C-alpha cells in the first residue's frame, strides 16, 4: 500500500512506515529517550531526503513524549522543577549548537563532525553504562553487597557548589550549576546532531545525580518534548522540510509502540534496564564507527547542493 509524500516528493509503503514508527516508539517509550537517532537513519535509508527525515521525525518524538509525560504526571513520576532547569540550560545549549553547526558547515567538515560526535558520545555513554551494569551483575552474583544505597549527606563534591536547590521528587539537593552544565551540553549536542539528547540525559541523571529510575524517564521526556516542539516549528519555518503525511504515519505507529514500550520498561528490573540501554547505545555507536572505518563498497555519493537564498 503506497502513499505519496507531498514534501518528500516520493511514495512510501504505509505499512512499513507504521511499523518503523511502532518499533522506534517502543524503544523510545521503554527507555525514556526520543529515538531520533534511530529513526533518522532509517528514514534516510528508505530514500527520504535527509533534511525531511530529520525535520519530520521530530513530530513523532513530540507525540510519543506527550504520551509519556502525561503518563508520568499521572504516576507522579515527573520532577517538573528539575525538568524546567534542564529545559532552560538546554535552550542556551541549542543556540550554541546551531551556531557551531553553521561554522562546521562553512568549514566543509560537517559530516565528519557529526559522525565523530556520534561515535564518541554513544561509545563513551554506552561503554560507561555497560561497565557499571556488568559490575553490578557480578557483585549481585557473588552475593556481595550491591551498590550501597545513597545516604543523606553523602554527595559528590560538585553538588556543594553555590546556588543550591532542592528537588523533592528526584531526592536531590545540590548546586544547579552542574545540572545546568549537563543541560547545556545536551542542548548543544542535540542541536548539532539533530537529536533530543535523551540518551545522554537518562544515564547522566541515573549515574551522576542518582535520580530514581522512575523519575528519570518522566523528566527526560519532559525536556525532550520542550526541545523537539521548538525544533519542529523551527524546521517548518526555516527549512520547509516537515512532511505532514509522513509525520502522521510515524505518529500513529509511534504512539502505540511507545505505550507498549513504556509498559515493558516499567516491568524491567532496573539493572536489566540499564544493561539494555547500554547495549543499544554501544550498538549504534559501533555502527557509526564502522561507517567511518570500513572501506566503503561505493566510495562515491551524490547530494543536492544546498543553495542559500
Amino acid at each position, binding site marked *: 500500500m503506497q502513499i505519496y509524500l507531498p*514534501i518528500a516528493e516520493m*511514495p512510501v509503503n504505509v505499512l512499513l512506515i507504521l511499523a518503523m514508527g511502532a518499533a522506534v516508539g517502543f524503544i523510545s517509550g521503554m527507555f525514556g529517550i526520543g529515538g531520533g537517532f534511530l529513526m533518522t537513519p532509517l528514514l534516510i535509508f528508505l530514500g527520504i531526503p535527509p533534511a525531511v527525515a530529520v525535520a519530520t521525525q521530530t513530530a513523532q518524538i513530540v507525540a510519543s513524549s506527550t504520551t509519556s509525560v502525561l503518563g508520568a504526571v499521572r504516576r507522579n513520576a515527573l520532577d517538573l522543577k528539575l525538568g524546567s532547569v534542564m529545559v532552560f540550560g538546554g535552550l542556551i545549549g541549542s543556540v550554541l549548537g546551531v551556531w557551531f553547526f553553521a561554522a562546521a558547515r562553512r568549514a566543509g567538515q560537517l559530516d565528519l563532525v557529526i559522525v565523530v560526535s556520534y561515535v564518541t558520545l554513544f561509545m563513551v555513554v554506552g561503554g560507561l553504562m555497560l561497565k557499571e551494569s556488568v559490575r553490578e551483575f557480578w557483585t549481585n552474583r557473588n552475593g556481595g553487597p550491591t551498590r550501597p544505597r545513597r545516604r543523606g549527606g553523602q554527595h559528590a563534591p560538585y553538588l556543594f557548589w553555590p546556588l543550591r536547590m532542592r528537588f523533592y521528587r528526584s531526592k536531590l539537593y545540590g548546586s544547579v550549576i552542574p545540572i545546568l552544565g549537563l543541560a547545556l551540553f545536551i542542548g548543544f549536542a542535540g542541536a548539532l546532531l539533530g537529536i533530543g539528547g535523551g540518551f545522554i540525559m537518562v544515564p547522566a541523571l541515573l549515574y551522576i545525580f542518582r535520580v530514581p529510575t522512575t523519575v528519570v524517564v518522566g523528566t527526560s521526556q519532559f525536556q525532550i518534548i520542550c526541545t523537539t516542539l521548538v525544533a519542529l516549528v523551527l524546521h517548518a*519555518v526555516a527549512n520547509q522540510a516537515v512532511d505532514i503525511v509522513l509525520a502522521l504515519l510515524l505518529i500513529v505507529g509511534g504512539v502505540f509502540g511507545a505505550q507498549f514500550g513504556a509498559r515493558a520498561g516499567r516491568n524491567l528490573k532496573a539493572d536489566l534496564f540499564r544493561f539494555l540501554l547500554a547495549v543499544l547505545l554501544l550498538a549504534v555507536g559501533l555502527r557509526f564507527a564502522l561507517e567511518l572505518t570500513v572501506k566503503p563498497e561505493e566510495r*562515491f555519493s551524490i547530494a543536492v547542493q544546498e543553495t542559500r537564498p
Partner: protein
Amino acid sequence: MRIAAALLILLGLATPSIAETLITSLSNHRVLINSNYTGTSIAIFGAIERDAQTVARASGYDVVVTVRGPRQFLVVREKSRVGPVWLNREQQKFPMAPAYLNVLASRPISEITTDALRQRQKIGLHAIIDAPDFTNDRGQSDERFRDAFLRLKAREGLYLEDERGATFLTPNIFRASISLPAIAPPGGYDVEVALFADTVILARTLTHFELVKTGFEQRVGEAARDWRLIYGLFTALIAVFFGWTASVIFRRD
C-alpha cells in the same frame, strides 16, 4: 496514461535545406501527482513527412528521444582513506544536471550516427554526461566523477538509456514510451526528438510536459511554503493531540 495521441500536433519544423518534417506528440502534457501516485509512463508518437520532391532514403530513418527532467545542482563526493577513517575528500559539482534523463533510440546509437556528431550534438546518455560543460571542471581529470555520477543515477532508476526504446510502426511513424519512476521529482520535463538518416540529423523537435502535484498534495506543498509558521504549529498540534489521545486510550494505570 491517457492516449490523446490521435491528435498529432505540429511542433517541429524542418530545416530549409532538408525536405523531411518531423511531427511529434505526447500522450500527456500535464501529469498529475495524487496520493496514490507511483510513477507513470507517457507515450510519444511521431510522424515523418516528406514533400513530393524528396527521394526515398535507402537506409530508412532512425530517431533518438531524449527526456530531461528539472535541473538540479548536484555534488558527487568521493571518500578516501585518511589514517584509520574514510572521509569525503574530493568532490565534483554538476551545476545543471537534469534530475531525470532518459534516452530512447530506435537502434543502438553507435549504429545511428558517428562518434563526432554524437559528442557534438549530445546524442545518448554518455555523450550528455561526458560533455565538457556538464561539470564545473577544475581542469583536471574528472572522469571518475562522471562515471560515478552515471552509476549512482542509473542505480536510482533516474538515468536510463534504451537502444530499442523507440519503435517504428510504419517506415514513417514511430512511438516510444517514457516511463517515469515515482522518485522523479515534480517540475518541467523537456522531450527532444532527433531524426536521423545516413548518420546525419535531418530534423529536431522539442516538446515539454509537466509533472505537478494536485489536490491535497498541492495544497500541503503550498501551505508548507506560504504559511510556514502556521503549518509548523499545526503539525505540532497534531502531534500533541495524538500523544494525548493515546494516553487517554491506554489509561489503565
